[in-house]
């Protein structure tokens, strides 16, 4: 009897670990875009959460149009890259030389505009999205608990994306420019690299990452107005913990935040809402530049 109880406990921690890293992976996608844009372009993008929301709504809309979630997502990705490019060209590109206050004002205005557009286009209802047949099953874990296959699918996609990002940044010419831009923007410019184009690419990629996170999360969180705001704050926490501008930092930070959040919620429910922020405080006291950030 005692023995079986122990096994139960072990499986409890194991399943919570799965829950934690799955949440962390999603956070990573959002935070990666945020940290890239902040670290390389020096822009505080409060509208980043709106792109997460736009991704979720596009996935919902296109899934209903095409009748298949995966096709919906495949169609939505190029649309979000286009939106990112358009927003960068029309608004952000005019503010690079301005101070942070102007950027905060602009990106706050973008939040309001996107929220209003969302209301006009899709209304204020909440929507569920059905995942394709082969992902809608569940894997039996204990006698009464099963784990939805779709959540494993999210984790798998995120791992693939993380590797792709690592490869692009470490092994390609574009990655070289991004890394160079992160450490010394002026020097990159002097060396004749088209920074304008570079920025447009980085920004569009960041937007696409956030939107993709929204699309993947849509079936497990539902699609609803204001869904971008929650994720925005927690993504900033991840970016700050990991070190601004560091993709590796965003990855480690996201997993840390995911695990602390999930274990915190179930083991210390009274402290659940502050644990993540407490983690941030501890990390910043220890390393003010974040885990993988470079000291200013």
């Amino acid at each position, binding site marked *: 009897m005692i023995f079986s109880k122990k096994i139960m406990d072990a499986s409890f921690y194991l*399943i919570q670990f799965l829950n934690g890293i799955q949440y962390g992976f999603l956070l990573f996608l959002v935070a990666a875009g945020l940290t890239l844009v902040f670290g390389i372009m020096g822009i505080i993008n409060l509208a980043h959460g709106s792109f997460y929301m736009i991704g979720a709504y596009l996935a919902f809309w296109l899934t209903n149009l095409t009748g298949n979630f995966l096709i919906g997502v495949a169609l939505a990705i190029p649309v979000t890259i286009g939106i990112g490019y358009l927003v960068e060209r029309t608004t952000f590109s005019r503010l690079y030389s301005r101070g942070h206050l102007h950027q905060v004002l602009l990106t706050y205005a973008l939040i309001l505009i996107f929220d209003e557009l969302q209301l006009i286009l899709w209304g*204020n209802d*909440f929507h569920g999205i059905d995942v394709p047949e082969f992902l809608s099953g569940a894997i039996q874990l204990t006698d009464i608990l*099963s784990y939805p296959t779709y959540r494993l699918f999210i984790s798998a996609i995120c791992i693939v994306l993380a590797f792709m990002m690592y490869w692009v940044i470490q092994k390609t010419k574009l990655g070289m420019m991004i890394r160079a831009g992160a450490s010394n923007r002026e020097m990159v410019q002097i060396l004749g690299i088209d920074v304008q184009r570079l920025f447009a690419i980085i920004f569009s990629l960041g937007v696409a990452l956030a939107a993709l996170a929204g699309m993947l999360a849509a079936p497990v969180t539902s699609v609803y107005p204001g869904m971008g705001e*929650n994720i925005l704050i927690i993504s900033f926490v991840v970016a700050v913990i990991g070190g601004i501008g560091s993709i590796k930092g965003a990855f480690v930070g996201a997993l840390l935040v995911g695990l602390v959040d999930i274990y915190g919620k179930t083991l210390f429910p009274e402290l659940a809402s502050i644990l993540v922020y407490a983690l941030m405080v501890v990390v910043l006291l220890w390393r003010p530049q974040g885990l993988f950030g470079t000291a200013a």
Partner: protein
Amino acid sequence: MSIQPHKSRTIISIVLLCLIPFFTANAAKVKIGILLPYTGTYAKLGTHIRDALMLRIEQNKNTLGGREVEYISVDSEMNVPKSTSRINKLVKKDKVDFLVGPVHSGIGINMARLVKKSGTITIVPNAGANQITGTHCAPNIFRTSFTSWQLAYPMGGVMRKAGHKRVVMMYWNYTFGRQTKAAFAESFSASNEEVIDIPTPFPKAEFQSYFTKIATLHPDAVFAFYSGGGAVQFVKDYAASGLKDAIPLYSTFLTEGTAKAQGSAADGIVSILHYSRDLDNEANQRLKRTFKAKTGEDVDIFAVQGYDTGSLLVQAMDAVAGDTFHKKALIQAMESVVIDSPRGPFTFSKAHNPIQTIYLRQTTKGENKIIGVAAKNVEDPATGCQM
């Protein structure tokens, strides 16, 4: 030089024209201030309440006691700190005759506190915090919805009768959720029954980790309070996690207005509420028909509460012939109204809360079907109300 007669006539008539508004002050429009959420997880609730309220007044030729109506509608965004300035604007700047709102209990308590001072006649069409018609009760505050006590206390008996001894209570951790838990625990724990408490942060809808915990605890049953967007997610995840087949789910609000979106995941869930769409009475048939025609949406309890708020205004204002100046007479008229509600006729308690029947329902194929009565003519104890 004297003024020519026809010229002086013109001047007099112009002066008289200018004075008309002053003589007809009582025929001015009735101002109704509305503070409800139109964005966020409770957006649909707010919209349904507003639409049904306006529908009821529309059915009365858009008049109250013979006077035309003007609405001033504000999005509460469910933001409690900001609600103070929003309520003050409606009460002090717009000087509304009636204030209707809110959905969120935290804002509701704040509103009760503020209008108790201003004396503005206020009708709460949803927020169920006990205090609004309890410690904060006032002659000018009415509620057409429910108290958290009314919708949680009867469930204790229902679940004990079903033979459950160990129950997990899961809820959004804000005023209403906490009061629901307290009232349920009070009625359920008669002898050796145990309630295991799992509060979750409002308005987050990420439940996976809690379900893992529930599987470990393996209780006899789960009692849950979630509403709107969060409720859809809860029910879907509960089914996806496999718990639905192992541990029966009881609820309040969980499947109201959301059962269609929840699909087959909601099948079999038992809930208690003061309404069900399949109630067979004339008022319910009429609301279902006209609400669908106006908004294209199906009626839920929130629409009913908005509609009844409209009925309260229509009936009371008819009784005083549209006189909003003599507040005492108007409040007396409101107190004595019998609302012909789609949930069945009801009257107000001394604390201005509906005395109503709480139904037991079960969800099948997107509909909440009545399977019994949880408790008849339930009157909230109105703890702490001195009026």
